[in-house]
């Protein structure tokens, strides 16, 4: 919401100009390095830094696919992140709806517990979780360890606390009269949720989905222990470019860029939702 239309004083305009310029530089610097280095020959990136490449080459973009099975990691990351996001949003919507629209015994205990898991240091339950998955696997035959399934379960739970908390806030801002009207019209509580509340909460849900996706896409610690050759994700797989022999900086940069572009593009497309979603969800 803009401030009063009164003309801003010079001092403010200049401060703004300087600040925004500096920030733009700060943000863009690594992006520039990433893009320009990815187009440099190996000799350029392993010698002294130079702003402009001595010659442009797309070689790194061809090589990245063979140095490391990048395509496979990409598919793995995509499957894991998308499934984790979908499941996380579904689970969070149900839970947030229950908390937002119902009174029940243990409600505060539930919300406090779920939120406090946000502060668990990952390292505390890395090994236990791993043991648990293995034991479940041995007892039931459901392969959680080393499979994409186990990783999906893990990541979707990582993003749950923040997602549930955001959506509670968002659902609270959707007028109750709307779903009560739907109930009067003969919808069940679930009908009210799916037909009224969810559509009204799209920005919040998108914001949560973006958050869940990014949590899963970038995670390193659990992925490094819980995946193997066939299920390795990008975040871990990218380390393959610094091999025993040499660090292929130009390939690392090219691969980083290839990995980032879809995420950044999606993120920017959805950013409008993000601001509105956060406005009602986290900020109310």
């Amino acid at each position, binding site marked *: 919401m803009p401030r009063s239309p009164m003309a801003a004083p010079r001092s403010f305009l200049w401060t703004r100009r300087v600040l925004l310029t500096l920030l733009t530089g700060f943000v863009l610097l690594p992006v520039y390095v990433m893009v320009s280095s990815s187009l440099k020959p190996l000799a350029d990136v*392993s010698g002294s830094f130079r702003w402009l490449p001595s010659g442009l080459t797309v070689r790194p973009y061809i090589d990245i696919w063979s140095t490391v099975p990048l395509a496979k990691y990409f598919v793995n990351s995509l499957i894991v992140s998308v499934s984790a996001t979908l499941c996380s949003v579904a689970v969070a919507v149900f839970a947030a709806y229950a908390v937002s629209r119902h009174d029940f015994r243990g409600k505060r205990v539930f919300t406090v517990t779920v939120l406090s898991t946000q502060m668990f240091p990952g390292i505390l339950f890395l090994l236990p979780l791993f043991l648990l998955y*293995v034991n479940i696997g041995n007892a039931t035959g459901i392969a959680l360890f080393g*499979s994409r399934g186990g990783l999906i379960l893990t990541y979707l739970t990582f993003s749950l606390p923040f997602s549930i908390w955001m959506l509670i806030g968002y659902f609270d801002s959707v007028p109750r009269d709307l779903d009560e009207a739907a109930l009067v019209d003969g919808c069940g509580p679930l*009908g009210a949720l799916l037909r009224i509340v969810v559509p009204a909460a799209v920005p919040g849900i998108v914001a949560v989905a973006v958050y869940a996706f990014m949590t899963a896409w970038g995670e390193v610690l659990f992925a*490094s222990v819980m995946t193997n050759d066939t299920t390795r994700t990008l975040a871990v797989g990218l380390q393959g470019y610094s091999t*025993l*022999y*040499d*660090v292929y900086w130009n390939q690392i940069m090219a691969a980083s860029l290839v990995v980032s572009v879809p995420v950044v593009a999606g993120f920017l497309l959805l950013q409008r939702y993000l601001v509105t979603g956060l406005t009602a969800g986290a900020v109310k």
Partner: protein
Amino acid sequence: MRSTRAAAVGAATLSLALAVSACGGGTSTGGGSDASPKTLTYWASNQGASIAVDKQVLQPELEKFQRQTGIKVKLEVVPWSDLLNRILTAATSGQGPDVLNIGNTWSASLQATGALLPWDAKNFARIGGKDRFAASALASTGAPGKDPAAVPLYSMAYALYYNKKIFADAGLTRPPATWAELVADGRKIRQRGKQALGAEGSNPSENIHHVFVLAKQHGADFFTPDGRPDFTNDGAVAAVKQYVDLMAKDKVVPPGNAEYAQNQSVSDFAKGRTAMLLWQSAAANLKSQGMKESDYGVAPVPVQSGSPGTGTQVNSMAAGINIAVFKNTHNLDGATRFVKFMTGDAEQKILNKAYSSIPPVTSAQSDPAFAAPATAVLRDTLARSAAALPQVVDESQFETAVGTAVKELFADAAAGRAVTTASVKARLQKAQQQMPAK
């Protein structure tokens, strides 16, 4: 209302089911716990230029094994950054591969977990006997007095790689044989505007390998004979100081190398920026970076005086990779046959040639490929003047604690802070205190 409730139950369980099974695509490759006698899972370490290269090298051999025995080997090349963690988690859960490669310095540590099959006389008999392996390689397969936890697969040794052209330009006719000569040569090389010696200052393992050898040359060890840490004895302190002084006092190692941890020093050497490099079996590595074999010479690592040998004349650790069988394997017979295959003469020649390492199997060493001048240096070093890193249970902690201490000392040296006997001793003291209490 019944139907709504049913719908709610449905939705709730559905989302859970979704969560559990959306994932069904994931394959279970936990590995060896399948009681199937016709398959094996093998974790190979990353020996080649990249994981892809390793697969190219190993896959045809695994197919050969399958043709011979009918056993299919599922290969996974595990990057070094993950290998120890993967083995640890496999040991904890009992769910791991059937056969795996381990760094030979980990042997005693992993032996203590009890996760690896002990190689007693009976097991050794099944792969052709203990006598087939070189004694120096067998020394790095587990704690002394216990049945080995693994079998040597590839052996490697450190050598001094030097750039012939830079040496000629500096008027040097032969590589240095002692550290004093190395420092003196380094000065001349620096006067010609080139860097003298490369080092991986931020890589704890590399640091350990060098200070271990230097300690030997000072007649010292980092552990007492009964296996207790003894990092602050005069010899150990002098060794660490001598190594760090290559940068701090002698200035032959450029300060920038203090932050090297990803083999940048090898790249520097391959690109002709540094004149010398102390490395283990670097030939394949240098070749992959475009350095011709005729451009560099290979010489034994320097000693304090005299020529390499045993005792204080040791000039390399006995480096290498061992192959081990995971105790939980359900296909013990197949796993042993696979180890026999990999340590057989034919495979030993093929694989060690591919990785420019030396076969730990003595009968395979006679192949002419290992008698070429460059490889002969490595072979002779292994045979005459290499020593095994201490085979103690806490080897992993030792590498971390002392290796990091050396890294911090390099950081001091690079920042221009003084590295004194006192400061070295203080760091080592701290490292020793971090070792598990006995």
